[in-house]
């Protein structure tokens, strides 16, 4: 998908530039945008080093586990059809916790583990269960306490106040998440399938 889009963007750019006589401008832009990306990466390194360092401390100190204790009851409420102490629940809690701290690297392996555990409870192995659909929807708008890459990017782009977006983003993803969960619970009745 992304391959098609990327190719289409470049092909369309060259076609547009050629028809409007802007090919020379386009030539300059190619090297300009590469220069921008290098400057950007240098700025990005600073922020990423900061946040990944801080988050490592949060991980090692057990703060991440503390957060997962808060998340567990919420997930139990949403996934009321699942056994509350199973492996599936544990993996989903860890996935959610990692997402909330912007630890994308940790979130994906735990998410895959959760899907694996949910599949063990599935009776029709090629049809998604309600819990699987819900879990994926939750992954579409995870609330983030520390959106590390966005914060780093904002400071490297000269923001006077990179952290100004943390609170609005948090409120926003809670709203998006609630909307998604409601939509999911309503839709699951119409698409058949099993628990």
């Amino acid at each position, binding site marked *: 998908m992304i391959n098609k889009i*990327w190719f289409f*963007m*470049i092909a369309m*750019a*060259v076609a*547009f*530039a050629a028809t409007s006589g802007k090919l020379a401008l386009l030539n300059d*832009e*190619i090297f300009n*945008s*590469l220069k921008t*990306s290098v400057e*950007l990466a240098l700025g*990005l390194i600073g922020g*990423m080093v*900061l946040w*990944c*360092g*801080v988050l*490592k*401390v*949060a991980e*090692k*100190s057990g703060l991440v586990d503390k957060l997962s204790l808060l998340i567990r009851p919420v997930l139990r409420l949403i996934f009321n059809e699942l056994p509350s102490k199973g492996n599936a629940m544990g993996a989903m809690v860890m996935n959610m916790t990692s997402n909330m701290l912007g630890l994308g690297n940790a979130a994906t392996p735990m*998410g*895959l583990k959760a*899907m*694996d555990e*949910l*599949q063990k409870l599935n009776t029709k*192995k090629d*049809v*998604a269960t309600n819990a699987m*659909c819900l879990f*994926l929807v939750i*992954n*579409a*708008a*995870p609330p983030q306490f520390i*959106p*590390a890459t966005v914060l780093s*990017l*904002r400071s490297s*782009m*000269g*923001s006077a*106040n*990179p*952290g100004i977006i943390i*609170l*609005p*983003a*948090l409120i*926003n993803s809670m709203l*998006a*998440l609630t909307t*998604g969960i409601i*939509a*999911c619970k309503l839709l699951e009745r119409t698409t058949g*399938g099993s628990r």
Partner: protein
Amino acid sequence: MSYIIPLIILFILTYGYIKGVKVYEVFVEGAKEGLQITYRIFPYIAAMLLAVGMLRKSGGLDFILYILSPVTNIMGIPKEVMPLVIMKPLSGSGALGVLADILKREGADSFAGIVASTIMSSTETIFYTITIYFGSIGIKNIRHTLAAALIADLAGVIGAVIICTILFK
């Protein structure tokens, strides 16, 4: 609001210090990972900045935004933010490149910049996640997952515009 980042850092480090974590060493260990992540995502950002830059310069992006303008006008989405709205569900690193482009052109603290940053921080790369997660366990029929995830994503986009309008405009 400018105290929020120093406070988060102080809180996490203090908690670690009390719990006996070697804060300096652990911080550096994590910082190395941060360096590696930047190193790893750089080619994706460069590829996407290149494509977005070319599309913008050629007038192609204006054309796409013009076609989409009836939709964006109804939902009140600033048109500068639209490239991110399209890219975010498809590719996380691609979206990061698009966000960088918006922040550079419009300014990180402009309204469009803040809305874009909010969207980036509160929605996820759903097509990718759905493909990988269901693919890993061999599910063929994903039922209502995509529909519900897209509803959540759309709510995230419209919500970001509304919340940022209330808070920053």
